[in-house]
């Protein structure tokens, strides 16, 4: 049993925290968003140069990390700073899928992604799929040794900034069958791909992508025909860990801002932090944040476990993070009062991210259902695994 980070992970954490402290401020983030950009491309390059993207890939994939704990370390820091650059969408989700499915065939693309030179996006969710990973109605029809893709994708993280899309499409089966889904590499400039980018409530960016008779070659299909579901699920497990660690980082900062405010804000002649009613609420919140930390550690330690165990932990962790995230956001705003609701003050941005994280990769109820389904009869939740 060891809950300490190893030496490399401590170095990674400290380096990333120093870099973000120096380079990433709430004001700079607001300026970028106000200018209409979806993120700071220069900063993203610098993050890549620092090796942050490499940290989420295993050595055999061209990275130098890739364990659950490495992901946790990186994303906790990104969450603390409120980073909107496309590390999650491009590196963890789409990059992770590419590495898992076809690392050898596309190693140049993967290296460019790890270097931050190419942006990838996973175009998977559809207007009717909600949080169901197996719900794919975009069609891939074989014709003359090629495929023609038709369909609509939504909530594609950084889709409008991506150079290359990983598009899920159905070769066979009904709309919600796990079997029959394939993944295709589609350059975003391909004829028939149209993309509408938009800002999200939490400052991140996504896109809606329409595929209208998009023609791709056999060689653009990743992995085995119709077998992409398992890889999509595993990639989402990693991305969910990243997202939950990001939430944990955001919770830590939201709490710290609130503690500082309670010590500084005076009403009735005393700091409001001297009121027991507020002290108890903050204490309760701290307990919940420690639960959130444990939940993230649990998932980090079971990323490489068998599917059932892993998915049990994905759903347990995402459910808990969803609940605690909303609690922390709501309580921190309430204890600040009006100032906590202003766009000018950092807290409201952490609160937005914490709440909206519940709308990505499945919410509290979705994962409660999944947890019940996966944990029924299983005794795996109590076992420990190697966090790496």
């Amino acid at each position: 049993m060891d809950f300490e980070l190893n030496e490399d992970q401590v170095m990674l954490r400290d380096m990333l925290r120093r870099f973000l402290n120096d380079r990433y401020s709430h004001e700079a983030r607001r300026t970028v968003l106000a200018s209409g950009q979806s993120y700071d491309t220069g900063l993203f390059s610098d993050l890549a140069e620092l090796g942050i993207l490499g940290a989420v890939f295993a050595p055999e994939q061209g990275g130098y990390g890739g364990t659950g704990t490495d992901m946790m370390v990186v994303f906790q820091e990104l969450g603390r700073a409120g980073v909107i650059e496309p590390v999650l969408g491009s590196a963890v989700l789409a990059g992770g899928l590419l590495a898992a499915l076809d690392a050898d065939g596309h190693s140049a693309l993967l290296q460019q992604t790890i270097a931050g030179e190419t942006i990838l996006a996973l175009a998977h969710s559809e207007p009717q799929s909600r949080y169901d990973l197996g719900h794919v109605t975009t069609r891939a029809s074989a014709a003359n040794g090629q495929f023609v893709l038709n369909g609509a994708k939504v909530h594609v993280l950084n889709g409008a900034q991506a150079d290359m899309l990983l598009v899920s499409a159905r070769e066979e089966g009904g709309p919600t069958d796990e079997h029959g889904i394939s993944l295709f590499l589609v350059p975003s400039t391909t004829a028939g791909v149209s993309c509408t980018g938009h800002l999200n409530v939490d400052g991140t960016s996504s896109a809606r992508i329409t595929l209208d008779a998009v023609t791709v070659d056999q060689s653009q299909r990743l992995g085995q025909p119709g077998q992409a579901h398992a890889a999509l699920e595993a990639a989402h497990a990693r991305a969910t860990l990243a997202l939950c660690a990001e939430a944990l980082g955001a919770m830590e900062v939201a709490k710290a801002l609130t503690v500082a405010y309670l010590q500084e804000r005076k009403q009735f002649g005393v700091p409001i932090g001297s009121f027991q009613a507020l002290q108890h609420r903050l204490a309760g919140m701290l307990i919940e944040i420690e639960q959130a930390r444990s939940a993230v550690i649990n998932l980090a330690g079971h990323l490489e476990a068998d599917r059932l165990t892993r998915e049990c932990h994905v759903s347990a962790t995402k459910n808990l993070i969803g609940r605690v995230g909303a609690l922390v956001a709501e309580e921190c705003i309430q204890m600040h009062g009006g100032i906590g609701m202003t766009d000018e003050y950092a807290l409201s941005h952490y609160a937005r991210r914490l709440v909206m994280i519940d709308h990505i990769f499945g919410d509290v109820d979705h994962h409660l259902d999944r947890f019940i389904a996966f944990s029924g009869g299983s005794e795996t939740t109590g076992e420990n695994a190697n966090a790496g």
Partner: protein
Amino acid sequence: MDLSYTPEQDAFRAELRGFLAENLSERVREKVRLGKRLTKVEMQDWHAMLNARGWLAMSWPRQYGGAEWDAVQRQIFEEEACRAHAPRIVPFGLKMLAPVLFKFGTEEQRQRFLPPILSGEHWWCQGYSEPGAGSDLASLRTRAVREGDHYVVNGQKTWTTLGQYANWIFCLVRTDPDAKKQEGISFLLIDMNTPGVTVRPIVLIDGEAEVNEVFFDNVRVPAENLVGEENKGWTYAKYLLTHERTNIAGVGFSDAALVTLKQVAAQTMAGGRPLDQNPHFAARMAQVEIDLMAMRTTNLRMISAAAKGQAPGVESSMLKVKGTLLRQELSALLRRAVGPDAMPYLPDFLDGGDNADPLGPDHAPAAAPGYFNMRKLSIFGGSNEVQRTIIAKSALGL
């Protein structure tokens, strides 16, 4: 014990329903239903529509152009207006300043200030909170110094709702800095077109600038704009705050929000079935509906007591706390029902752009901003913590 309305009250409800069906435009209804932002003109038109029927000033005496509705009638109006997706009535002049003028103003002030509230010529806002005076409102520092027949005002107000549209502001100002903090405050009416008044919008967490900072730099205010006596303003402010709270349960809003939530949950497919058949979500909806059923009666019980002449006291604090928690819970459930489609932030759609694409169902874009906006309910009008302290002291004697 009888829970039913009288035949007269039923007839009144039917009359309101007919009026709203006939007069409220489909465009405004849709905007309110979808949580879009209303323009100043749309809010003014709604006031004008009610005023033309004599219903704008529902609680005012008839001699001043009011409808003299009792508390139950006002509650019925709130329910019907929310049900019809009518805009809310902007309360500052009608429901906050006017009661103070009736109780503490001079007849001259009533003649001067009440008609422009009805006509829409004056749009009032509230100058209470300051950067250093929130929960502890009595610590306010905006200073008014008497110079001849004027007061000279310097200082800053904040969280001034819809101040960007207002041309008049009623303010609490400090006229005696040496007195105990509650005893040196006066209630002053200020024309916002006076030199030295500056309004700066504050963008909030939902992306909208609904509140403002208002700065006063040597603003000269005629002494006749003082309401009541100098240094008695705290008494008037407390009276106004009590008044502000009688309608703060917002049961009508909750009723309308529940209807919308149920429609959305029935339309939304989640895991192969409508969301309202998902046991977890159905349980959350049922729980809030059960609470709301009791809340309606709690509200009516307190309204009946008020109708019998009992002044609203600690009851309004209870209504505020429970009523705001319910509205917040309903907005959280709507946000969750919408699912991933709650993510996009689409200001053009929210501002009512006719060609703006909601990128999903049309009820989706306002779900998250609406949820974040609702966080204000437990903060403003005396935070829920302040209300609980009042309840502990007044109702429990602690």
